[in-house]
């Protein structure tokens, strides 16, 4: 077998959760030789990242006892592949047993960290905390920061705000993680009721000098939150500064522009407020800030006594909101019909499962536009992975269901063939008395033994030699040859000579002939032993085959109900998973719809007020 890679490198190769450094380090290790071909076969699929068939082969080989030479590394590999397959609970069960003594601490710690992250993302807070607890010793710096952050996030999510604040407050990391930590302290402070402390923290983050795009976004977010907090607290002048610190182009710029406008409006500077709000007019109407600006603009205009213009803007806004609300209703209907989620998998080969699948292209359509932010969240992405995995399972079960009929036919064919062979074999066995043949062979052994003991050279003569000898002895016994005559004497001498020559030849060839016959008898014995062995096998087969076929039939018969049972539950889980995704998508759309409804009411109310003022003015003028 070719040298494979070490156990550790196989685990290291498992995927994204390990940094490239680990690959290089592990690959440099002494290779191990693959001793079981089945293990090599597992690796063949594993290296192609076909985890499902690799796991199936590994489980099958393990059950057959074919991985004895690779037991531990196969188990570790299985754990790693379970992770890739998205089977995190089983993976963890293996790692709990094996990681402690088998792998380098760094790799073990990385694995637990990765599991903690998965569990946090999937809502297993207790298990995530437990996994972090298994980390023993140092992680690399970047992971150490992320692990500490993860620990704090788990605490925040579990409502344990004080301990999260305590953990994050003394963060002395020089990287961007320190900023994230401060931000998360802010979150925990707000949730634990210490709002004014959170504000101070936001101001600090909002003034930092970002050295990456992520940090710039974090800074924008902090400034935005702070600006709105100050606005809400009636401090529009103070609110402007953080809001103006938000970049003009970016995910938070619309909200910041809106806020800056409100700050000016709060200070009664409506013409100035119109500047950022008018800038928002040309931007994406799906953004709530842009929607709100459509009301803010006429509000400012009405304050500036441009009543007619304000009325036009309110009318435009009502129309736009109405159309948008209708489109959202249609989007909700499409999501409820289930088509929306199927479109995520159009063109998907569905050839794998697990973590490493990700959406490459979002489905086109209005729903996607409304749900863009939701689709990017962990909750939706992980839910979508589960949904896709369930579809994969269902397809796998469908394929097997088709195969069951084939197995049934195959087994029937084999049974029929066996029945035909059995009839033929039984007939042949009746014709052949093997025991009698053995008895005959034993008799022949005894005869040969006697011949050897008595050196019975005549017994090994050929038929012609024997006939000649018989002829000679017959002539010799002729009474006429006993006469005392010269002729008779001459014949007797010739007979003696002939007998002597014949005996001489037979005695000369005796040993060779004896050996030849002994060999033939030996071959016959071997053939008889082989025949006896074959007979025993036939007897065994006749005894065991019916039982084997019965067992196979039982297994095949049990397949359909088993497949149907699992398929039913997978289908049901698929429905629940779809409902879950539908619910969070529709909830998101409902929020947008409700916001538009509120805006519409406000616009109508404002418009009515304008008309009322206008009517009153006209009445006053006419009076």
């Amino acid at each position, binding site marked *: 077998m070719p040298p494979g890679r070490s156990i550790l490198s196989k685990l290291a190769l498992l995927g994204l959760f390990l940094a490239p450094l680990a690959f290089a380090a592990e690959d440099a290790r002494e290779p191990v030789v693959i001793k079981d071909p089945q293990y090599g076969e597992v*690796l063949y699929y594993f290296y192609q990242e076909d985890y499902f068939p690799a796991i199936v082969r590994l489980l099958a080989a393990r059950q057959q006892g074919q991985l004895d030479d690779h037991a531990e590394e196969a188990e570790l590999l299985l754990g790693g592949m379970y992770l890739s397959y998205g089977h995190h*609970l089983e993976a963890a069960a293996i790692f709990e047993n094996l990681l402690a003594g088998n792998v380098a601490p760094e790799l073990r710690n990385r694995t637990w960290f990765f599991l903690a992250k998965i569990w946090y993302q999937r809502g297993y807070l207790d298990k995530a905390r437990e996994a972090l607890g298994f980390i023993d010793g140092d992680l690399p710096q970047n992971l150490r920061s992320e692990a500490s952050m993860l620990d704090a996030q788990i605490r925040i999510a579990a409502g344990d705000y004080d301990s999260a604040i305590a953990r994050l407050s003394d963060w002395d990391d020089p990287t961007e993680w320190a900023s994230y930590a401060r931000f998360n302290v802010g*979150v925990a402070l707000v949730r634990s009721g210490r709002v004014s402390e959170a504000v101070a923290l936001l101001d600090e983050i909002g003034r930092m000098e970002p050295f990456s795009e992520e940090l710039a976004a974090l800074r924008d977010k902090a400034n*935005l*939150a702070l600006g709105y907090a100050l606005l809400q*607290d009636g401090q529009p002048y103070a609110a402007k500064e953080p809001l103006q610190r938000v970049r003009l182009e970016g995910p938070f710029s619309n909200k910041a522009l809106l806020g800056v406008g409100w700050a000016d409006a*709060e200070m009664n500077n409506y013409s100035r407020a119109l500047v950022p709000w008018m800038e928002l007019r040309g931007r994406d109407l799906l953004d709530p800030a842009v929607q709100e600006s459509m009301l803010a603009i006429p509000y400012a205009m009405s304050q500036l006594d441009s009543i007619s213009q304000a009325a036009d803007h309110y009318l435009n806004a009502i129309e736009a909101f109405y159309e948008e609300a209708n489109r959202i209703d249609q989007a909700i209907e499409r999501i409820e019909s289930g088509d929306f989620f199927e479109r995520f998998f159009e063109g998907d080969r569905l050839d794998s499962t697990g973590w490493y699948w990700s959406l490459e292209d979002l489905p086109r359509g209005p729903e996607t536009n409304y749900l863009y932010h939701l689709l990017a969240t962990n909750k939706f992405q*992980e839910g979508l992975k589960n949904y896709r995995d369930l579809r994969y399972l269902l397809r796998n079960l469908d394929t097997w269901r088709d195969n069951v009929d084939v197995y049934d036919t195959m087994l029937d064919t084999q049974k029929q063939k066996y029945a035909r062979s059995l009839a033929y074999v039984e007939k042949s066995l009746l014709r052949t008395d093997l025991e009698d043949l053995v008895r005959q062979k034993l008799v022949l052994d005894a005869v040969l033994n006697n011949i050897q003991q008595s050196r019975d050279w005549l017994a090994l003569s050929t038929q012609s030699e024997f006939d000649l000898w018989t002829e000679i002895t017959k002539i010799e016994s002729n009474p006429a040859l006993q006469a005392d005559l010269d002729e008779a004497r001459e014949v007797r001498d010739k007979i003696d000579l002939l007998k002597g020559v014949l005996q001489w030849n037979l005695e000369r060839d005796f040993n060779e002939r004896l050996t030849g016959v002994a060999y033939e008898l030996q071959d016959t014995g071997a053939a008889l032993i082989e025949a006896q062995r074959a007979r025993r096998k036939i007897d065994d087969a006749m005894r065991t085959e019916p039982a084997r076929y019965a067992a196979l039939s039982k297994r095949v018969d049990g397949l359909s109900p088993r497949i149907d049972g*699992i398929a039913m539950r997978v289908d049901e889980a698929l429905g629940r998973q779809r409902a*879950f995704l539908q619910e969070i998508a529709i909830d998101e759309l409902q929020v947008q719809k409700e916001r538009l409804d509120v805006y519409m009411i406000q616009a109508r109310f404002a418009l009515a007020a304008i008309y009322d003022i206008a009517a009153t003015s006209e009445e006053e003028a006419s009076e």
Partner: protein
Amino acid sequence: MTKTFITIIAATLLALGGFAVAQDAAPIESDAVTEAAREAAAEEARSREAFRSLDEDVQTLKKEVLDLNRDLFLLEEELLFPANSQVAFFVSMDVGEYFEIDSVQLKIDGKEVANYLYTAREADALARGGVHRLHMANLKTGEHEFVAIFTGKGPHTRDYRRGATTVFDKGIGAKYFELEITDRVKKQQPEFIVKEWE
């Protein structure tokens, strides 16, 4: 009107929760702010529990489907290739120099039974230590012969075509052959070495 507008946007900001990179913090002093943040957190917790419950079911189903696949894999093998007559041929590679396998052809007792073309992904898996099960057969006890031929490209895109012939005696019980492509014997000359397992 002003305050209403601001409240709507601020509530949106507050409702976001969770990880630092993906969420907003909260504004100033008032119990309402904390209350809103806590409500958002409670909603997150409910959603998290719902997700976990579904995920646990998915985990159970994944295990059951894997177990089923394992059982079916074994059943299929037992049905198609009973242990007594089973012969399996595996292909592996142990080539130090660059060598890219194209195909392997296998003939048993003069009859072609496999002619496998490797994709780049499969060839890579072989080069990294994977073992490919090329063919499974049912053979009667007694003497048999197989001929294996591989083709591929070595350094400087030189074409290689090498073969090996093996006569073997099939007894009772499964027999496994490994057709290893190696350059250990003649340096930089890949060729087959046939190994046998009982």
